């Protein structure tokens, strides 16, 4: 699967897709391939304030627990209940049905600290 070029990426293998003042966040295909079958997702509640690059949740595969680090800071305005109920949706397509949270951001300049798809592909190709 190709890395979508409509969004930005973090070194921690999360993506951020801008839709006005709200940014949708998820993990990358590289991350799901490394994790294997995802069986549990723990996300913060609506209204939680998160800081860019800080831990905001956990994702568990059959074998291991991994921390989720948010690529942007702001206020959580929506949580994908679909992946809470069916974590395998993250494996199915991490860029669409497998999104994790939507975050309202006040400062769009945070996105400058993220990579575009080409830079992210170079990072993961190493």
């Amino acid at each position, binding site marked *: 699967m190709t890395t979508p070029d409509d969004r930005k990426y973090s070194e921690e293998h999360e993506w951020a897709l801008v839709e006005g003042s709200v940014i949708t966040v998820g993990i990358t295909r590289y991350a799901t391939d490394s994790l*294997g*079958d995802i*069986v*549990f997702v*723990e996300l913060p509640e609506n209204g939680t304030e998160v800081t860019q690059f800080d831990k905001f949740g*956990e994702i*568990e*595969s*059959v*074998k291991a*627990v991994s921390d989720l680090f948010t690529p942007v800071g702001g206020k959580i305005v929506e949580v994908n209940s679909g992946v809470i109920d069916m974590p395998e949706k993250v494996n199915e397509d991490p860029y669409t049905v497998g999104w994790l949270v939507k975050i309202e951001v006040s400062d769009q300049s945070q996105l400058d600290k993220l990579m575009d798809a080409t830079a992210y592909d170079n990072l993961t190709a190493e």
Partner: protein
Amino acid sequence: MPDEQALRETPLHRTHVAAGARMAPFGGWDMPVQYEDGIISEVRAVRQHAGMFDVSHMARFQFVGPEAVAFLDRMLAADVAGLSLGRARYHVICNEQGGIIDDAIVYRITDDQCLLVANAGNADAVRDWLIPSAQQNGGVFFADLSEDVAMIAVQGPKAVEIVDRLCPLPASSVRPFRVRRAEIAGIPSRIARTGYTGEDGFEIMPPADRAVDLWRALEAEGVVPAGLGARDVLRLEAGLMLHGNDMTVGNNPYEAGLERFTYIDTPGYVAGVALRAIRDAGTPRVMTGFRMVGRGIPRHGLAVMKDGEQVGTVTSGTHSPTLDANIGMGYVDRGLSAEGTRFEIDVRGRLVEAEVVSLPFYSRKRG
């Protein structure tokens, strides 16, 4: 890195890599954790059809000689003398203090020949326990067959039917916990009706240089390759313990719930005195299975809590795809180990409710 160079490879290593397996170190060996379809798919294959595991990394030690059986009965809690020829027994290997060195299967091949299959990670510990005594003991000859003989476990509801197609004996005539010689796909092997998944099936020991041929023959019959990731989920669903995870040399068989597999009454058994004392004193904690009521997956090392106090420790836990539940086991205060008792698991700061259930979590339907 020296550590990576030191990793050992089974005769099937290249076959795994060529199949796209994800490899990782396990007990000193570079082993397949999963193949391309992933752990859950492999677990389903074993529960619904038939899967196969390369278990050549496990230690295979042979003891031969007129004193072999008597020697093993002094060193193992296995009552080898009580085994008829061609029978196998799961048991724990304890040191003189009653600590568990390993759990293993001993096969009584003939009157004066036994095979011991031990965990890869404990191969050295088991050798250190047995070999110095064997050398002092006339009439026992030790051989390490681990390099010369491979081992492939074929497990699942279709395993027996499939292996029968490759074995004129037929394989199904080998009853559970029996072992004998047979040709599988024309390959002279030892075949045992044992396993570590909670399913019916075999562990087949071909010569190392025929392991790839046997693997391919089984694959051609539709047996699905499965890795150590699936094996760990399957054994936990079946309530089977993993040494190094669920018990160490710091545990005894009574707290581990393995007293059924600890034969302590053989005269001269070296750990008999210590084990009887532990048994008679009773152990404050006991291996307990539980199922999560709240949202969370128990993991090795997490604390078991009740009314704000730690009452135990999780030793294994996972999401069970077969039961669609999060399950675990660990050492818990005896007073809280009865079925239906509730306590919490401290999942990295979150207290998540769990309820004690009887082990195993999963039992196959028997036909």
